């Protein structure tokens, strides 16, 4: 286990270095003098001079990268020119909103995806299977921002049951908080439910054809016990670890969902930064997201080894 951990961590170090180079390199895509572009429409000479010095633009590119990565390693992701705040502080301010949205979305995705996958595998090639596959295809093909607009039309405009947009802190009013988040969380969970359903179906089909399930059936266990106690437990191992990799879908989806429902989270931060030409925030958000994704991948791998005895032996 320790050897696995060391090997896996040794693997992610170069990946993290490349990620940082890639994100630093984004700045080089800006047309013209980065200091002038980053200074915004006013192009105040003082701001331009300040940026040139702060970004070490007179130095060669490798040196500039070293200055930048040194700052990053000390928690300095740059400063938002528009909001006059450190990027990391902005991310930390917006992150809880997105995390709450993402957590509810995952619960919804699990509640739809896993049962649909089980039913689809157990009732293979029946109407249930076709319906579950249809639901998965629907989830994978629906643009979530459109689904969001359609849900607003139905539940906010037509029925008047839920607020169309906005966010209320759970510490202020929990009921209003849930009412504001249920639609965006469903929109976000929809696509992930489809992926989970496909993973669960495929894992269940594999497990159901294994010898120990046949043995469980042969010794007369009720089908319910065979499915839930023996098959599902093992089938869920890859589902949960593969599901962890859906963080990317979740964060990408959050960008659009937060835009549709005007939720002041992580996703809205990057979109607002793009339109305000606040490039340090864009870089900071991408770097933060990528690092979180890599670390979550690592955790998923470790969890997989812990729960899967075969992997431990290997």
């Amino acid at each position, binding site marked *: 286990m320790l050897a696995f951990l060391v090997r896996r961590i040794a693997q992610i170090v170069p990946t993290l270095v490349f990620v940082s180079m890639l994100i630093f390199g984004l700045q080089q895509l800006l047309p013209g003098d980065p200091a002038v572009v980053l200074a915004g429409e006013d192009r105040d000479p003082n701001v331009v001079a300040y940026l040139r010095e702060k970004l070490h633009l007179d130095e060669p590119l490798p040196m500039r990268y070293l200055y930048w990565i040194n700052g990053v390693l000390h928690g300095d992701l740059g400063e938002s020119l528009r909001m006059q705040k450190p990027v990391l502080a902005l991310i930390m301010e917006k992150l809880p909103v997105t995390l709450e949205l993402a957590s509810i979305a995952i619960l919804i995705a699990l509640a739809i995806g896993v049962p649909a996958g089980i039913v689809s595998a157990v009732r293979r090639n029946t109407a249930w299977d076709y319906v579950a596959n249809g639901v998965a295809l629907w989830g994978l093909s629906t643009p979530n921002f*459109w689904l969001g607009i359609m849900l607003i*039309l139905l539940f906010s405009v037509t029925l008047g049951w839920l607020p169309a947009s906005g966010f209320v802190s759970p510490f202020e009013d929990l009921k209003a908080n849930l009412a504001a988040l249920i639609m965006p969380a469903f929109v976000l969970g929809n696509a992930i439910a489809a992926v989970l359903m496909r993973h669960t179906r495929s894992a269940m089909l594999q497990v159901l054809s294994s010898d120990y399930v046949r043995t469980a059936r042969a010794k007369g266990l009720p089908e319910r016990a065979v499915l839930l106690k023996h098959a599902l437990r093992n089938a869920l191992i890859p589902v949960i670890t593969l599901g962890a990799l859906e963080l990317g879908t979740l964060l990408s989806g959050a960008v659009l969902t937060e835009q549709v429902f005007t939720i002041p989270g992580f996703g809205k931060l990057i979109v607002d930064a793009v339109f305000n030409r606040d490039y340090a925030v864009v870089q900071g958000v991408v770097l933060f997201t990528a690092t979180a994704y890599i670390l979550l991948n690592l955790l998923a791998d470790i969890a997989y080894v812990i729960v899967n005895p075969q992997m431990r032996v290997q």
Partner: protein
Amino acid sequence: MSNLADTLPARTDVSRAAPRAHPFRRLLRRRGAAVGLVVIAFFVVLAVLASFVSPYDPLATSWSAIRKAPNSAHWFGTDEIGRDVLARVIWGARASLLAGVVSVLISLSIGVPVGLLAGYAGGKTDMLISRLTDAVLACPFLILAIALAAFLGPSLTNAMIAIGVSATPVFVRLTRGQTMAIKAEEFILAARAIGNPPWRVALRHVLPNVVPALIVQATLAIAAAVIAEASLSFLGLGQQPPAPSWGSMLNTAKNYVDNAPWMAVWPGLSIFVLVLSFNLVGDGLRDALDPRQV
């Protein structure tokens, strides 16, 4: 976008495959895939013949027809400045299909040679390419595309480049995985044994066997690229107004959802139907090209 490297087994030499029905015929036997193909063909015809089939100029405004509900003159209704929604949906198909196909071509043109090199050369080259691929894959697809589009500047061309570059790692991984598996086959050893140079073995013997998996992944990637283009245009980073695009139409429509819902229904439905069709064809192709199905 899912990676097919783990789901599709490496193909053996195409010419030596067991006799079976032609993959295209097997694809057409799957009802979902056949319907998907028909729908895609319909959208392609619509996009190509937009100037002939569109009932109105998609940019023509009419102050007397602002936000009119669907009627006999405007089947899909009109938008906030009196433009015909049907005309804009038809012209929007061009942007979506163009973005879908061009961005996947960008991904293929970078991903396949790089993946082939990594898989065939192995060693340090493979390690370097794999770590670079991991780095790009670590950035969520749409977030990377947004960042690239933001730094390159908002336009349909830059959106296509951003989507293409962001989707490239999937093709690198797929090509690499398939190449590594095929490299160990006997017919490759034979090709090397008779003195073929490495580039010839890679291009003439390995690449043709990677193509089926690439076709499946490319079809599914077009579906993802269509959604990505619509997403970028929805955020204002893709096709710029007043040029029609399904994503930008939805961006405007969200402000009028209470009094002109038709503005949102049709472009969204078009994205859904087109993406669903590509997914159906992709799933059908995966089954039709998978040797385990024989």
